């Protein structure tokens, strides 16, 4: 198998990330020039690996919840009986997106206390819009003759949804999930301001102690995660688009 340059670069990024998370002390000499007054070059208050895992778990949990709600909502408002709720659901989901995540955190903390929950809620609200909009696009732009044939062959509404509409909309839904995950990966760092265990902790520690090395390692790990996840999902989306035979995804 021929390995293209883009794939090679991603493999190198993945390996570098894995090694850094497992053995951050090996990179100490590289990071030392960024520190001042003999400050520690590598964040050791808690393990970078466990922070990364907790960061990812939070993002995935929130995305799964957003996916269930957003896809469910999109299915509901594209049915004959739910069509009148389309404008309402659109504005609800839009509100979720326009609320700054910091404001969601600030409002959620008094109700839910510090920690994971306010962050999860902010990520959940933030993830809804891309998935909802993409699912809506996927379900409302299906080719007319195909839908006509689905009805004409005697599929019930449920069978049309499961056998035709969702499989054909799947690549676009996956695209929405991809956007949502990448936004959440970045947004989750803010969760550390309310004591959620995410990679934001490293960045905030760096900002507080004026330690550029901390800021950089937190930021680069988040960025590398985002790029790798984005690329894998894009690949999955392309495969799904080819399988759907519609060829309308990126």
């Amino acid at each position, binding site marked *: 198998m021929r390995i293209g340059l883009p794939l090679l670069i991603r493999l190198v990024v993945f390996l570098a990330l894995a090694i850094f998370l497992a053995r951050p002390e090996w990179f100490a000499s590289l990071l030392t020039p960024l520190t001042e007054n003999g400050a520690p070059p590598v964040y050791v208050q808690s393990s970078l690996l466990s922070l990364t895992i907790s960061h990812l778990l939070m993002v995935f949990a929130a995305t799964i919840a957003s996916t269930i709600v957003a896809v469910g909502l999109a299915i509901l408002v594209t049915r004959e009986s739910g069509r009148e709720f389309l404008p309402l659901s659109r504005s609800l989901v839009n509100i979720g997106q326009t609320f700054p995540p910091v404001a969601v955190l600030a409002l959620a903390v008094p109700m839910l206390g510090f920690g994971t929950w306010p962050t999860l809620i902010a990520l959940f609200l933030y993830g809804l819009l891309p998935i909802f909009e993409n699912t809506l696009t996927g379900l409302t732009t299906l*080719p007319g*003759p*195909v*839908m*006509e*044939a*689905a*009805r*004409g*062959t*005697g*599929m*019930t509404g449920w*069978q049309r949804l499961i*056998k*035709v509409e969702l*499989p*054909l909309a799947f690549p676009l839904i996956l695209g929405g999930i991809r956007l949502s995950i990448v936004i959440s990966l970045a947004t989750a760092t803010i969760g550390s301001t309310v004591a959620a265990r995410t990679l934001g902790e490293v960045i905030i520690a760096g900002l507080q102690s004026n330690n550029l090395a901390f800021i950089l390692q937190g930021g680069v790990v988040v960025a590398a995660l985002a790029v790798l996840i984005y690329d894998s999902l894009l690949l999955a989306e392309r495969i799904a688009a080819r*399988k*759907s*035979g*519609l*060829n309308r995804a990126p």
Partner: protein
Amino acid sequence: MIEIDAISKAYGDVTVVDNVSMTIEAGSITVIVGTSGSGKTTLLRMINRLVEPTSGSIRIDGEDNGAIAPHELRRRIGYAIQGHGLFPHRTVADNIATVPKLLGWPQDRIDARVEELLNLFQLDPASFGPRFPHELSGGQSQRVGVARALAAEPNLLLMDEPFGALDPVIRAKAQDDLLAIQKHFGTTIILVTHDMEEAFGLADRIAVMDGGRLLQYATPSEMLASPATDFVASLIGTAERPFRLLALNPVERAVEPGAAEGKPISADASQRDALAELLWSGRPALPVTGKDGAVAGRVTVDGLLKQARPA
């Protein structure tokens, strides 16, 4: 037998199908023609309840179609549309198997039926069964679309401009195939088109629609002899009438005793083809061969010209 009884469909104040009644014989091909907006497609879609009528009723073999759940009704009626509407994420075999699967046929019966239909439509099952619709040509997709419509052995097949997207050569072939398949299965076919040539080529009876009303429902030769309105006459085309009439009848009916020189023509060819051959080759008469290949007589220009007028 399909009995359409005073059926109407209105969207608000606009009546798209206006009090249409007609009876369609089992095992026949009925073609509904009309301009766009004539209500022909709406009429067709009321038969399998893709459109619900405002008033009136349709009985299929005596059973009111309004009394059957729409999805169950549609599984019993074949439906083929323009642009075929194949499911792009399913293979050709899976597409054809759609209705049998919905009906819960056992897998071996489904497989056998899919293979039978692919063979019937001259598509090699081993090569075409596993393909996806985007790997097919327009003519192949269209055939698979009709095969899917016929998969569950329906007595009735509805076709909405099924050949509209095909080029003329493939379209003529598809029409011939349809006639052959109709003979093979004895399916009742109701086909909608705006192409008069297609209507005359396929129909046992033609229904002409305009502005939601049924103007005339008659056999092609009756329609040629006495069009009900000026609109029907203009749809047939005044200049086309003698040629359409010749096209309807086989050479067999114009055979005279006697001999003629040159390449013979088969007795079941159309009289229009015979006239064309006579005109083009400049001969006064053609020998006619029967089914056994022996010369049965001849056909002359004068003889054909007598046939080109309504009796």
